[in-house]
């Protein structure tokens, strides 16, 4: 067994530098790498390119990095919940590359799978297609999309073991499972870190080979963005 455990979040983010490209897992605030984000904010790295489906909210998630002007370029599919983001984007401080969600996921997955590029119909005929190669397959037009290249991927899982194997819970799997192994260094934080052998190999979602560093996360807030309930009958 190759041990992937690092002592804490500080060790997990060691080597991060200004100007790097980071992938950050999560959908909205669901499944975001809370510990890594807090440590990146404290570390103060800047001029970053961040790839994440959303940009957090003004006071949580990637929003915390935006407030400190650490992000130069944001690659996301939907940023509607973050006022700070919208202000920085409209005022031109922040470069934003809005990308269709399925293309964003596949650009991560392609990097994870060692595929340099792929064709997708998403965005054909829209401004997303500007400057992109197009090709017809089976009578339908497609765009060529390139795999992302990132220095670090920060992902969050429910359970992990010392070998770096990961299991996700519910819809917190989202982009975390696509980004693991898609960057030079993948850092996984988990709610519960167990010794190798305790997770059933049949239940592993992401094998440890995709993960370079794993650590036990602390004090998860797991904030709910839109609490919706129904009355009891």
């Amino acid at each position, binding site marked *: 067994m190759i041990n992937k455990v690092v002592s804490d979040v500080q060790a997990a983010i060691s080597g991060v530098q200004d100007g790097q490209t980071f992938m950050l897992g999560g959908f*909205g*605030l669901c499944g975001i790498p809370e510990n890594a984000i807090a440590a990146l904010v404290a570390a103060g790295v800047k001029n970053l390119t961040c790839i994440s489906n959303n940009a957090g909210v003004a006071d949580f998630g990637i929003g915390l990095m935006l407030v400190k002007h650490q992000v130069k370029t944001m690659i*996301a599919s*939907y*940023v509607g919940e973050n006022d700070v983001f919208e202000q920085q984007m409209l005022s031109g401080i922040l470069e934003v590359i809005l990308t269709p*969600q399925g293309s964003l996921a596949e650009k991560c*997955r392609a990097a994870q799978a060692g595929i340099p590029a792929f064709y997708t119909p998403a*965005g054909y005929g829209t401004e997303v297609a500007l400057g992109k190669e197009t090709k017809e397959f089976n009578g339908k037009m497609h765009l060529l999309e390139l795999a992302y290249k990132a220095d670090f991927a920060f992902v969050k899982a*429910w359970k992990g073991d010392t070998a770096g194997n990961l299991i996700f819970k519910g819809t917190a799997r989202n982009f975390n499972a696509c980004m693991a192994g898609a960057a030079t260094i993948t850092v996984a934080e988990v709610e519960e870190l167990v010794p190798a052998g305790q997770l059933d190999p049949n239940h592993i979602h992401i094998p440890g080979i995709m993960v370079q560093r794993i650590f036990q996360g602390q004090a998860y807030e797991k904030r*709910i963005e839109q609490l919706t309930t129904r009355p009891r009958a």
Partner: protein
Amino acid sequence: MLDKNGIAKRIAQEVQDGYYVNLGIGIPTLVANFVREDISVEFQSENGVLGMGPFPFEGQEDADLINAGKQTITALPGAAFFDSAMSFGMIRARQVDLTILGAMEVAQNGDIANWKIPGVMVKGMGGAMDLVASAENIIVAMMHTNKAGESKLLPQCSLPLTGVGCVKKIVTNLAVIEVTPEGFKLLERAPGVSVADIQAATAGRLIVPEHVPEIAV
């Protein structure tokens, strides 16, 4: 005229037994409330769940279980979770039978715009571009006119496009309309709404058959 629930009720009639359905945010989300109980339907949310159930009871919400609108949800028996790449894989590969989404504008050739108002509102396209580019059957749920009273059914879209030539059907507060190669074809009119009202609220080419039945909801 139909209200938002009325639009959702009418669209629910389009949902057939055995369908996997993706619902967008807003009026489309309401469609789930009106699907016939004697048919089997599964709702897909593109953030990674099939078999989405109703909102949880208070106190039973789970931060790790949300829909694409970031709302807390439940999972029904038979549900499955998956990652975002697989989610859009099933959309791209047309395993999802029906997509219902909102729009700011629809053009008479089926173009749709729903993600950006330059200089005013930029929230992003989310999964809408992937959905409209791949789905075989797309129904738009929207008001017939915008807040300024201007038609949202146009000869061509003025806003940045989400997808080209993809919308098949539109259900508004005024009418049910099919997108045909010749333009918008009026299929049904809302209760209390005349063909002339619909004509006046439709900027694009409207084809009016001899008989236009009232929407039954």
